[in-house]
């Protein structure tokens, strides 16, 4: 098929194609109407056909060429929008693939020569497959962005530094410690030490499910870094199983003060400051 003839074909049959396509979309994409309105779908379809026409008109077949930029932009925004609405990747790709069905039906009616028809089908099939895969790619990327953002939010949520007393900070750790998190935990703690001019910190690991050599090493690094800045750390909340693991693994905690629970650690911290909690007389 000569360049432009597909565009011409789309141009001539635009109205019929759109009508057929919308009908097929409703049938193929399950639950479509629950999530987006029919008008919205029709606008999206119309824009897609316009952009496709423009792209095909250039005679290019490479999806990354400038002629396809309008089409790419349209599909990208559609994909990320649909991803946010909760569509699956196959539903999003189905948007493009269902157009294939409408297009083929019309091509079959217009082109009578079987060889020419086969060529036309093959060419448009390839193009639309690429477009369908493109939507899946964009879909995945936008999902990854969502996941990445959520991970960041979780990191921020899970590393609060609280002030227990003037100059005494506590860092309750919850969840598994990996290298990335330890880095943030370390940074948060050290910055809080400077900001609040505190020289005692209690790292509470009650909420850390497992301690392996790596986690222990990370904890020791944090303690060492705090010491370099002139602050002392106490590790609290060590459960019996974790104590066993630490010894079985042969991890040497060195001269780090460890306590079984936060209350004991706090008492030690107060004692170091020359303070004590006393009962009110009378």
């Amino acid at each position, binding site marked *: 098929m000569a360049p432009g003839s597909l565009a011409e074909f789309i141009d001539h049959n635009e109205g019929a194609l759109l009508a057929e396509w919308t009908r097929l979309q409703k049938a193929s994409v399950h639950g479509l109407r629950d999530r987006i309105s029919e008008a919205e779908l029709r606008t999206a379809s119309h824009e897609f056909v316009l952009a496709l026409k423009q792209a095909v008109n250039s005679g290019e077949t490479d999806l990354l060429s400038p002629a396809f930029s309008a089409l790419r932009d349209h599909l990208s925004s559609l994909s990320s929008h649909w991803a946010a609405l909760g569509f699956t990747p196959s539903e999003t790709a189905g948007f493009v693939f269902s157009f294939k069905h409408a297009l083929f039906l019309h091509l079959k009616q217009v082109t009578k020569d079987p060889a020419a028809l086969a060529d036309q089908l093959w060419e448009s099939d390839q193009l639309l497959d690429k477009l369908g895969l493109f939507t899946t790619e964009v879909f995945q990327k936008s999902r990854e962005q969502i996941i990445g953002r959520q991970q960041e939010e979780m990191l921020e949520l899970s590393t609060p530094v609280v002030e227990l007393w003037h100059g005494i900070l506590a860092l309750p750790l919850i969840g598994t410690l990996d290298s990335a998190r330890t*880095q943030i935990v*370390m940074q948060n703690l050290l910055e809080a*030490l400077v900001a609040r001019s505190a020289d005692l910190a209690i790292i509470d690991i009650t909420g850390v499910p497992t301690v392996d050599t790596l986690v222990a090493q990370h904890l020791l690094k944090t303690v060492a870094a705090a010491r*370099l800045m*002139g602050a002392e750390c106490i590790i609290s909340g060590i459960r019996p199983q974790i104590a066993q693991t630490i010894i079985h693994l042969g991890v040497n905690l060195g001269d780090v003060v460890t306590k079984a629970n936060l209350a004991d650690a706090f008492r030690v911290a107060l004692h170091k400051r020359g303070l004590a909690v006393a009962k009110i007389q009378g």
Partner: protein
Amino acid sequence: MEHIPILRLGRFLLVTIQVDMHDQLAMVLQEELTDRIVRDRARGVLIDISALDIVDSFIGRMLSNIAGMARILDAETVVVGMQPSVAITLVELGLSLPGIRTALDVDRGMALLKSAIGEDQEGDLGRHG
């Protein structure tokens, strides 16, 4: 050439590093500081590195060396005001500066030095100055 001033404060020497430390400067500081410890009969050295954003392994080792030399000359060393990013870098480099005392700020560093060498010797050195 750049020069790092060494201030005398009673029986202590106060060094505030406010320029980027390069290796030559570190060597000069090391030499001058040991000279001054002997000359002033100092009992403590306080090094303020709060203005330093970058400390490499060489500077880290130099701090260790100064502390070691000072100890031989009967003076305690306290490094104060290390930035969080510097502390993290040093730990990642495997330099935890074991022989060095540290404090959050100059105030606490002074208190630490005083408690380390004992208050009773203050009068003795005060007369010397």
